[in-house]
């Protein structure tokens, strides 16, 4: 099955928003776990927790070849920042960093890195988990799950089979 041409890149490289001890970004490049951790490390933090979401090779026993992510960039960054701010405040973190990858993500590669640092470990564990749940619930990024016989748009909200991925190009004139 030939690869359907994906959505045009929303931007080149990386886009980020940051405030004091809060960093969120999206990038088409491979994610860097070391850099994420380094960003949140602090003499004030006894605990650093890192979550990496990786592409798994199957969905309900069907073989997945790869995932691909697209986004409404300005809105997704806003939502990421809002979540990061809330989590930072609610868990009294030292620092938080969220980076989501866009474009094709192959088996075993990371699509999301969440790094949090806190004075003590309880807040770190809780913040990392809560952060991921909110990101998956709200951030305006969409996943295509690709199998041998085509791709499906996934929804985090329900486990239903999603709509097939179809070539979408604005070169085709729309009917009036």
């Amino acid at each position: 099955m030939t690869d359907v041409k994906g959505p045009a890149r929303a931007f080149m490289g990386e886009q980020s928003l940051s405030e004091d001890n809060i960093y969120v970004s999206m990038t088409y490049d491979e994610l860097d776990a070391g850099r994420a951790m380094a960003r949140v490390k602090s003499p004030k933090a006894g605990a650093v927790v890192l979550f990496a979401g990786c592409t798994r090779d199957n969905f309900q026993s069907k073989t997945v070849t790869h995932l691909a992510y697209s986004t409404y960039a300005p809105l997704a960054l806003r939502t990421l920042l809002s979540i990061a701010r809330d989590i930072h405040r609610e868990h009294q973190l030292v620092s938080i960093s969220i980076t989501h990858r866009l474009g094709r993500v192959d088996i075993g590669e990371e699509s999301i890195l969440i790094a949090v640092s806190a004075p003590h470990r309880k807040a770190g564990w809780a913040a990392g988990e809560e952060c991921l749940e909110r990101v998956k619930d709200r951030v305006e990024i969409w996943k295509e799950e690709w199998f041998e016989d085509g791709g499906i748009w996934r929804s985090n909200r329900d486990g239903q089979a999603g709509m097939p991925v179809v070539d979408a190009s604005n070169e085709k004139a729309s009917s009036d």
Partner: protein
Amino acid sequence: MSTPKAPPGTFTLLYFAAATSYTRRQHDHLDAPLPVAALYDVLEKRYPGIRAKVLSSSALTVNLDYVDVDEEGARGEAGMVIKEGDEVAVIPPVSSG
């Protein structure tokens, strides 16, 4: 995404995910002004079945703010109107992570 600027008298409607697969387009330029409550009728005419297949499970943003289409409809004359140059987006159920 470098979406072409909306020609005069139109607004930009961005499609994402299942909405791009259904319409086979990344965006449309539609005539403005248009009440938000009328948008889905316009889209249904252009892409029959889109309401049931896509819009009913999607959210809508206008200039990066979420809009409750039903609520705007209930406000009648006082409901939100999409203006020339606005950026509207169909937001299907998200799936990050």
